[in-house]
């Protein structure tokens, strides 16, 4: 069983400061870490390898510093890693990023599973995973919370949805985006770290990928950031003081009227 995991380096959220003037993130000086939700994707792939054998390959696209997250993946037990690094990739939106990642997967060879985290904690779009599936024409299963039955040509998963869980069967190869509850990530080991230090990381540029440069980077990205605004949260609360039984009943009435006016009671008042 071969899994390819897509991971990303993101700013550490506790370090992030916003520029009050422009509303954008101040990236300088902030520490970069492996996207915390991608650790679950790595763990999922490693557990599949533990149970079924095979290999775990990891790809990241990003600047030179992104090598660090690939080394972490090796320290956890992943086998092969690829670093997609080229000025031509800079400024890519989710569409362009997913194109580049898909091209890298094609070059490696379509695996049994492509696994990603639910989303990255910086952009928060959750688009790249499904978009990669789209480029590769693979079935996509998002918000996967558990894998029930994995065979060489199909799997059954439970997807976390608003109402609970949804069981879905899919043929392989497929792309999964996984949620936190799928697995408890293992800790990296010193043995793994030493292996990571000794590993020569393969770097691929745009020309290595047989990819159309018009589809990548800022120019290849259809997304245009027109304006960034920080939403203003305003709460209009009404205080009702309860002093005795009479005012308690009155307060409950007022609360009902308040909720009714806003159509928030659903079927409760029927």
């Amino acid at each position: 069983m071969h899994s390819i995991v897509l991971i990303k380096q993101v700013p550490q959220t506790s370090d992030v400061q916003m520029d009050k003037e422009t509303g954008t993130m101040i990236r300088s000086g902030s520490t970069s870490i492996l996207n915390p939700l991608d650790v679950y994707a790595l763990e999922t792939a490693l557990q599949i390898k533990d149970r079924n054998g095979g290999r775990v390959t990891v790809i990241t696209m990003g600047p030179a510093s992104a090598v660090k997250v690939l080394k972490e993946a090796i320290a956890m037990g992943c086998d092969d890693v690829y670093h997609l690094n080229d000025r031509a990739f800079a400024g890519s939106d989710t569409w362009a990023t997913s194109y580049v990642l898909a091209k890298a997967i094609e070059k490696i060879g379509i695996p049994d599973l492509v696994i990603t985290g639910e989303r990255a904690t910086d952009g928060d779009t959750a688009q790249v995973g499904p978009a990669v599936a789209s480029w590769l024409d693979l079935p996509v299963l998002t918000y996967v919370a558990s894998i029930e039955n994995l065979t060489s040509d199909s799997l059954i998963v439970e997807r976390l949805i608003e109402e609970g869980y949804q069981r879905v069967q899919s043929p392989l190869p497929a792309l999964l985006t996984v949620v936190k509850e799928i697995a408890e990530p293992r800790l990296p080991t010193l043995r793994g770290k030493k292996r990571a230090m000794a590993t020569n990381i393969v770097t691929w540029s745009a020309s290595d990928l047989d990819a159309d440069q018009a589809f990548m980077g800022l120019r290849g990205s259809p997304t245009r950031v027109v304006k960034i605004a920080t939403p203003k949260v305003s709460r209009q609360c009404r205080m009702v003081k309860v002093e005795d039984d009479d005012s308690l009943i009155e307060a409950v009435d007022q609360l009902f009227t308040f909720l009714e006016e806003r159509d928030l009671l659903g079927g409760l008042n029927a």
Partner: protein
Amino acid sequence: MNTSYTAITPSILEELKAIVGEHNLFTDTERIENYSHDETSKEQFSHMPEVVLTPISTEQISEVMKVADRYTIPVTPRGAGSGLSGGAIPIHGGIVLSVEKMNKVLEIDEANLTVTAEAGIVTNELNEQLKRTGLFFAGYPMSLETCFLGGNIAENAGGGKAVKYGVTGRYVLGMEVVTPQGEVVQLGGKVTKDVSGYDLKQLYIGSEGTLGIITKATIRLLGVPKYASNLLVPFRTAQDAISVVPLIMKQGIIPTSIEFMDKSSLEMSCSYLNESLPLEGVGAMLLIEIDGTDEQQVEHDLIQVGDLCSGHKAMEVYIAEDATTRERIWSIRRNIAEAIKVYSPIQSLEDVVVPIGSIPLVLPCLEQLSGKYNMRIPCYGHAGDGNLHATLVKNPESSMEEWLEMEPRLLSEFYAFIVGELGGKISGEHGIGLKRRSFFKDVTPRPEYQLLCAVKQALDPKNIMNPGKILL
């Protein structure tokens, strides 16, 4: 020592109200109940005060002490109430004087690398306010999210980073103290050396509020180390884990922390946190932290310490280099005390400290006592300092009477071994307070005990300053 005190009358209350204002004085049972205990067992140690005061200035505290001195009223100073030895419990009633409203940073002096703050500031908050300067206060009590600076100094708090950074006292350059008679004295200052007279500042550090009330302090700051990484190392037996500690210290690398967690502590904390760390066959773990300003150096030291563990019976060496993973493993260590409380709220959290070379000898003694008294004794703590928190936990099947009878007998045996055989002390960082005062008297040679009494007598002849703590 005097233990006869004046009860607080309505007219004394009026005098106190005139000093602190009515918003800073309360006597209603519901509110003062919160000030009747700390983190020690409420069933065993709590005692109600007569009045709680929350003054807002040194001048107010000074005036309150003058009233207390005039009428001979006991005054118990209080920080956040996170103490573990009953130091803030008003066992003679009287006044609890809480510094909770004196919580401001007064000056950050970057040229002299100092911060001056009021006693009621929360330790973490102090470091939050220092963040922009790239400096920090290196004291790291495990309760740093709640404990106050004043309490840290009064208890000379240690914590998880003392192997490298030492305990609170190392960083106190100066302090303002209100004496039991209400005099305001300034001890030390911003100087780093001072042999002008007796070192009174040092006397107040760790005095547990028995000699005066610390109202402000000037703290020496260090540059924040930019990089920190951790190792989490499981061993088959606690003995294997503990035996590695002196070897690590010999290497010439000074880790920030070497924390020890035995099997029971790990199981309780992991189950409390829903953490699925593989524990099969694990007898104990060490949590080791290395920090520094050079990323490569930190990595190099981490590998060297990790290799040493691998060569000395470590089952595995886990590494945590990013903030998320580091928080994950530190959280296991920090939550042990809470997790043990969930297992059994009746317990005694101990704090013995021994020369680091003797740490391997503590565990067989605990094992023997655990068997003899049929009591679980999970053990964890700051192995790098020789400071272990063995926790006596009441067997849920035994009665409260049995517990109250067994606990002191077990402790007497344990302390006799720690002090008599190993040259250790009965408290490394939690203090003697109320909880250990009789044991302290038992294990302290008479001439030394008399010297301590003489100091107390000289500074507080009426015994109104936190009476009943440390000394009997």
